Each structure stands twice: as C-alpha cells, then as structure tokens.
C-alpha cells in the first residue's frame, strides 16, 4: 500500500521519485473516469476546494475546476480582479480568511514566486500550487510526465529537449525536476539571455543551438515566449527568435521520426511552433490538456487525504477502488 503524506503540493523539486510515480499512477486511474459518459466519482464529496487565481488564467483554472467537480468537491472561486488584494490585504491574510471558511484544499496561482509556499506555512489546509511566478507549476510538470509516459511507454532514458525562455518559465522548472528524478536526460535550449547556465550544475545540458539539440530529442517541449521579453531586452526581436528557436516543418525534418511535440499552452502560433507543427501528427498538445484534468484530480485527491493529519490510504490505482 503506497502512501501520500504531504499536506501540500508546492513543486516537483521537493518530491521523491516514488511520490511522482504515485501521482501519475493515480492520474492514470482517474483518466478513465473522464472517458465515461457520467464523469463523476464521489471521492471528495463534502470537501471544499478553493480556487484562488490571483493572476489571469483560463485553462489551468478550468482544468482544476473540472477536476474538483469530477471528484464531487464543492468549489469556491476567487479571481485576481475580484480579490481583496487590491484593498491592501496581504495574500496570507486572504488565505487565512479562506481557511477560516473551513476550506480543505486551497489552489493558488500567483504571479510572484514563493507565494504558495508562504501561504502553505501560514495555513493548516492543503495548498496546491497552480503556478507561482517563475518558480514551479507542478501540476503542469506532472501533466507532461504523464503524457510522455503515456506516449512513449517510459520516461527513463529519454532525451527531452525544453526550448525557450527557461529563465522565466515555471513549467521548465517543474518539468526539469520531474524528468530528472524519473531518469530522463534534459537539454535546455534557448537564447543565452534566457537559459541560466547554473542549470548545468543541477544536471541539465544547456544548448544555444536548436539545430544541434533537436536531432537527439525523443520529446520536445516548446515554451511560450512572453511579449515582455523583447521590451526587457532579453531578445532583439520575435522575428529572430522564431528563426532560431521556433520549430517548423523544415526543422522537424532533422528530428527523430517518432519525436513528440509538446507545449504547455497557450501557443504563440508562428513563434514557438509553426501552425503546421502545433496541429501536426507529432503534436500531443491537446492530449496534454485532456490529461491535465486527470492529473489535477490526482493532486486534489492525494493532498486532501492528508488533511487534518490523516494519511490517505491510496488504493492500487483503479477507478473501482476510488469509487468506494
């Protein structure tokens, strides 16, 4: 019987290989539920999940909301625009108020690194990080692990290439930790201003030339390039970025035929990926979105089982086990 003991899910850096496997195995069990005509199990009936999105988000928020609903949890929703932060309340104070309403799991998205960790220290309920600044986006990292394993049958020994703005990407960090712990070889590629060289000391390979890195890859994860990076002088132009680091059909010719192409979304079509690649046969981008719900169901289910000091007795991942 495997056990999950953490109150919170704040990042993949903290997790062991066993915990990562527990999460994605649990997600595999939950994925089947999403394929049924009646997509609901009573696993979190009577529990309350608060979605506290202090930074605009559409797909992650929708994914968490559906995940909670498919587990029969009650949902409380806060958004940046309606939150009391504008009135000078601190994030921690907001979180304590939400907790005082007897919420079981607090899902937090914030544009500042470290906010979920700070909140998790200050409240007794479980905290799930839905993306904090440039730090981590653990559920997206789990989605990527899950999807790679599903498509490739394994993670260990694969060459995974992450392309783009590594410096500012929370997805890159979560992917990196998860992949390395599960035995993949990770190459980080992008313009030198956006790839921190110290990542090499953590075991990543760093490359500034996509044409050298791409042929080796079994999996490529392209990251979204934020518009601000040009104003902040990290890159001279989007045009050159696309030419050097954008993946199009021409560059794909040099890659392994069974390469899969991933992206956490939303894609700047024609920048990181050409539309032909984003929509092409090697792209698994929409499957990542589908898998997102199962992964978030697993995250919510496992952390809520530890609430109030209890340890979730996780059944061997099978939908039957979850339903009882």
């Amino acid at each position: 019987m495997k056990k999950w003991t953490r109150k919170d899910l704040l990042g993949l850096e903290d997790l062991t290989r066993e915990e990562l496997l527990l999460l994605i195995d649990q997600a595999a069990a939950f994925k089947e539920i999403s394929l049924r005509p009646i997509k609901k199990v009573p696993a979190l009936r009577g529990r309350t999940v608060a979605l506290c999105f202090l930074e605009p988000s559409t797909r992650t928020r929708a994914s968490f909301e559906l995940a909670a609903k498919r587990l029969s949890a009650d949902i409380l929703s806060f958004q940046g625009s309606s939150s009391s932060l504008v009135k000078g309340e601190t994030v921690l104070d907001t979180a304590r108020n939400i907790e005082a309403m007897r919420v079981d799991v607090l899902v937090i998205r914030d544009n500042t690194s470290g906010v979920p960790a700070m909140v998790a220290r200050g409240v007794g309920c479980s905290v799930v990080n839905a993306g904090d600044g440039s730090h981590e986006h653990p559920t997206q990292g789990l989605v990527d692990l899950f999807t790679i394993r599903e498509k490739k049958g394994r993670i260990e020994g694969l060459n995974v290439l992450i392309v783009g703005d590594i410096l500012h990407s929370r997805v890159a960090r979560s992917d990196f930790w998860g992949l390395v712990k599960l035995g993949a070889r990770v190459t980080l590629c992008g313009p030198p201003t956006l790839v921190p060289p110290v990542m090499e000391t953590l075991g990543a390979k760093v490359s500034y030339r996509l044409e050298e890195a791409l042929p080796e890859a079994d999996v490529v994860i392209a990251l979204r390039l934020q518009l601000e990076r040009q104003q902040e002088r990290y890159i001279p132009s989007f045009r050159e970025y696309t030419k050097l680091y954008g993946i199009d059909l021409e560059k794909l010719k040099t890659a392994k035929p069974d390469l899969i192409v991933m992206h956490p979304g939303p894609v700047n079509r024609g920048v990181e990926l050409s539309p032909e690649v984003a929509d092409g046969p090697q792209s698994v981008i929409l499957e990542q979105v589908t898998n997102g719900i199962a992964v978030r169901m697993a995250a919510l289910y496992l952390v809520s089982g530890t609430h109030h000091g209890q340890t979730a007795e996780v059944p061997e991942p099978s939908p039957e086990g979850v339903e009882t």
Partner: protein
Amino acid sequence: MKAPARLLIKGGHLIDPAQNLDEPADLLIENGRVARVGRNLKAEQAEILDAKGKVITPGFIDLHVHLRTPGQEHKETILSGSRAAVRGGFTTVCAMANTDPVVDSATLVEYVKSESAKVGLIHILPYGAVTVGLKGETLTEMGELQQAGAAGFSDDGMPIASAGMMRRALEYSRMTRLPVIDHCEEKSLSAHGVVHEGLTATRLGLAGIPTEAETVMIARDLLLAEATGGRLHIAHLSTAAGVELIRAAKKRGVSVTTEVTPHHLSLSEEALSTYDARFKMNPPLRSQKDLEALREGLKDGTIDAVATDHAPHSLAEKEAGLVRAPFGVVGLETAVAVLLTELVHRGSLKLFTLVEALTRRPAKILGLDRGTLAVGAAADVTLLDLGAEWVVEAGSFLSKGNNTPFLGWRLKGRVSDVMVGGRPVLRDGQFMNGEGA
C-alpha cells in the same frame, strides 16, 4: 542615571586595539573619562563594578544604521533604535540619511541631533546626504552639513548612479576630510532583482541581483577616488570580487575603507530557500564563496569595520512575502553575539580583530576621538560575557523591527554592561533606572 564621580571596573580582561592592549586590566573612570588603566587598581570612594570573567572593550561604533527618523517612525525611533544599540553594546551609531524627508540640509542634521539629545542614551551621529533628495542630481551643501554635525556623507539606499556626480562628490568633500559612503549597486544590472543571482535564485524562480551590480560600481568608485584623492567608504561589502578590488586598491594607496555586516559574514543565499522575507536585504546574501572571502577580508584588514546596516521594518511590511517585502534586516541587538558565535568561538576570527572592527577602525574612518579606552578618552565602555548563551526570539527585540535573519539561533556571547561617558546605562543585561525609559 547620573554618572558616579568615580567608577572602578575591576577584574576583567581589557581589549583595546587602539592601545594594542589585550590583557587582564582594571579601568578607573573619573568624571566620565578614563582616568587609569592597569592591574590591581585601587581608588578611594569609587563605585566598584565587578568584571570578573568579562571582557572590557571600548563602546562599539556602528557606521551604518537606519534610525528611520524623521518620517518613518513606525519602523524605528531614535529611542527604540538607541535602546537596541545599547543592548548590542553600541555607544555610537551613525544614522543614515535616507529618511523622509532626506537629511540633506543643515536644518535636518540639527533636527536629528536635537532629537538624539532629547533621548540622550548614546551618541548618534547623523550622516548628510551626498545629493539633494538622494536624487543624484545636485550636491548637498557638504560644508554646512559638516558644521551642523554630519559625520560623513551618504546616499545609502540609493547608489550614486552618475559617475560624473560621484567624481564631483569625491572632489568637493575633500575639504571636509569626511568620507563619501557609497551604496554600490549598478541598477541596470540589479533591475528588479530580489536575491543574489545564483543557483538559489534560479531554483526558486526569483529575479537575481548579480555580483557585478556591486563590483562594477566599486571599480568605478575606486578609480574616481584614486583620481580625485577623495575619501571613499564602500558600504555593506558583499562580494568576493569586491574584496579583491578593494584589497588591490589599498595596495596602490587609494584612500578607501569598507565595512561588512554580520549577516553577510554568517549567511549565504541558501537561506532564501524557504522564500522567507527575513532573509531579504540589499545587497543580498551571496554565495558561500563570497562569505568566505568576506571573512578572509575582515581577518586580513582589507575590510576595516563591521557595521550592521540595521534596517528595521514593520511586521506588516515584511509579511508581504519575499518579493513584495522591503529590503533590510535588523542587526544592532544580534551583531556581536552572532560574530562571537559564528567566527570567534569557532576559531576563524580573533576576538581582538572583532573588537578592532567595532571600535578603533570605525572611529578612524570618521576621525572620531572615540573607540579607545586610553587615559583621557570618553568612558564609553562595553562589557562582554563571552560564555552566556541565549536564543534569538521575535518578542525580545528592543528595536521596533524584529525582522531578523537569526530568529531561533542559539548564540553564545552577550553584552552585559554598557557605559556611555562613564554613565552606566546597561548593567547585567538590564537597563538602569531611568535610562531609555
């Protein structure tokens, strides 16, 4: 409390680097000044203070304190800051000018002095700003600031961004013989940085402040000091490369001095791993390699002084989270105990050198007739109990700020007694009646 006419401090071990003394000795104080130093002193009708097992040193001098007055009294007042200083063994502290309004006129220097006189606990020496409003555009009237009592010039909190402005400041201040104290930070490199640019910043996804934000400006300042003959003091040195630059400049004879904080001598970037704003200050906690170079620099005299950069903030400000919270930590009450615990007791720094960096050397930087217990000197005295252990607790601070990076640390070494001008202010860790009430 009134000073006794004669006070004899007996049975202690005296360390006074200004006299090159490090030996068992008694100290006789008469009318607020040191009257005699020596073994087995006897004095009729003197009050006796038993210093058995204690170390007697000149009162400490802190070159770098934010007393937040005027204008930010919710963070610190002259009274709360003075009490914190006494607790830490400091009898003289220099008050930074980045207040609201900025101390950039003789009137404001006089205001800080008169407020300090009302409290009257310790010596508070205001710095005047280098540029009006810390804006880096117009020199302050340095001559007049000095006449009003400014002990030096600093835009601390803000670097002097323009090289041309810094050149003029170093030239013009020569007539005062006072140092220009620069907070070296090239803002185009530090930008929105929160912590040291290194492995921890990358792991945590935080914007970094690179080493070069400090060293580029130190290099510039050293060249300008060399060219102008001005007196340069580099505030809160934090980098190994900065130590190296200053070491080389001193060898060439550049008129430069520098200081280091207790936190940069005892903590490194890894402390930030939990995103705790108690570890956020500027310059940031650097790498282990930087920490070791700073220790070496203090040991070999490249770094002249230990200064706290005591920067109190209110709880509300610091609980805003690592990124949003303001830079700065308190330091007066923990400085000497942290350095005793981390450096002296572990054998990596001589007690004599630590005392020197807290007394003779800072006095020399500002040309003060303090920092010594030579006969005739003002009797500012600090007694240390090297073996006393205590735990740093948030509720125990006398400063208005308890934003300490040392929360929960068990420290070995405590300030037991403090005298200011022969007047006992702290005795056995307790404030004397009427002092700092």
